[in-house]
């Protein structure tokens, strides 16, 4: 992934934003000095920066698909286990982990149990949001009970290190011919959740399907994402993390930076490069180079970094 052009960054650093960022610096934290947009890098090995006191580092994993057993990866439990080992080996221990859905392949209890057991090896807090594979047959009741603590706790938010984290669910009550969907009830909740918050609060939204249309032909988008993002308009820094498409993609649009993550189970093709978006077969020895984890970290006085790390890196 490319680092942002510093000329563009300086041009977008408005006085208002500078004041907001200065306020952050004064508070001992800076989400980003580049117009609220974290820089993105794709690194391997030991390039992760140390996070001094006051900084934050957390991990995103996605699409573990426990229960999948096809040629693209006959052993997703093995690769999820490798992903958790990678998290544990990070030079800077993450404050917590996010899982952006498709924990299971077919919403089976034993798939959820296996995933939970392996992910539990991380040892820290994990915040989940479901993928469409996690809500088959019961509209997510089993998933929400197991991973969110209650069948009624679907979407939620929490604060950490001065940033506001929002788990959105865009895989329920999908409509024929549509994409991902948030729905009226969730949109109203989101509007209420954001109302009254300071515009200088960095927002991190995590969800399963992309909130920007990566591919209309393959349904890689969310029907009512525009409305949701409209509620974030006053905020200087909005970072959206998602899974679903099993590959790293990024896009910056206005105040919002979008990042899709790798899977821990199998890759999917780039839009338009295959007949369908299903599992992509790669030579066995290459599989772990296209699976991975993501760290998001930032330090006082520097820009936040989104770093994707392959399992073999």
């Amino acid at each position: 992934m490319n680092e942002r052009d510093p000329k563009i960054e300086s041009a977008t650093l408005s006085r208002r934003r500078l004041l907001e960022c200065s306020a952050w610096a004064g508070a001992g934290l800076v989400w980003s000095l580049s117009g609220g947009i974290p820089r993105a890098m794709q690194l391997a090995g030991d390039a992760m920066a140390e996070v001094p006191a006051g900084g934050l580092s957390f991990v995103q994993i996605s699409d573990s698909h426990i229960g999948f057993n096809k040629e693209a990866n006959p052993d997703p439990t093995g690769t999820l286990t490798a992903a958790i080992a990678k998290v544990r080996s990070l030079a800077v221990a993450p404050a917590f982990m996010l899982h952006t859905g498709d924990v299971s392949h077919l919403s089976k209890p034993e798939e959820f149990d296996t995933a939970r057991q392996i992910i539990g090896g991380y040892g820290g807090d994990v915040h989940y949001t479901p993928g469409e594979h996690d809500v088959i047959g019961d509209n997510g009741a089993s998933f929400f009970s197991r991973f969110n603590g209650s069948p009624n706790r679907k979407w939620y938010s929490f604060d950490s290190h001065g940033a506001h984290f929002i788990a959105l669910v865009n895989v329920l009550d999908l409509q024929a011919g549509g994409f991902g969907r948030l729905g009226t009830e969730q949109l109203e909740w989101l509007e209420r959740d954001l109302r009254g918050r300071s515009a200088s609060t960095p927002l991190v939204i995590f969800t399963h399907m992309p909130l920007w249309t990566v591919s209309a032909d393959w349904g890689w988008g969310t029907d009512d994402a525009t409305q949701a993002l409209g509620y974030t308009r006053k905020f200087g820094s909005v970072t959206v993390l998602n899974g679903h498409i099993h590959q790293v993609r990024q896009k910056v649009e206005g105040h919002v930076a979008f990042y899709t993550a790798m899977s821990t189970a199998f890759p999917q093709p780039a839009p338009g490069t295959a007949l369908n978006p299903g599992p992509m077969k790669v030579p066995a020895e290459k599989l772990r180079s296209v699976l991975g984890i993501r760290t998001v970290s930032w330090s006082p006085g520097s820009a936040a970094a989104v770093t994707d790390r392959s399992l073999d890196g």
Partner: protein
Amino acid sequence: MKAIFMHCVVLAGCLAASVSGSASNAADPVNIRIGNFAFAPDVITVAAGTTVQWVNEDDAPHVVIGVDNDTPIKSPALDTADKYAVVLAKPGTYKYFCSIHPHMVGTIVVK
């Protein structure tokens, strides 16, 4: 899982026979192939009482669900090579989609 689907197919066959009185419908379900994240054919016309059967040929699971609230089309998750059959006894237009890949849509016209 497979045993359950076999059961569904057999059951569907009995229903078809009782509704339409035609043994040939039960013996020869009309197949809709699920491949490359699409239904093929995506629009078909069948006689009332026909058994319609979806066969998943993708490496990804699909869930076939009718659009109408009272739809008889409600499959469980169909993994690779799984089949789901339903008898459409009542004439009408049945729109359906994949509930986990909702851009996949199809229509069955029953006459």
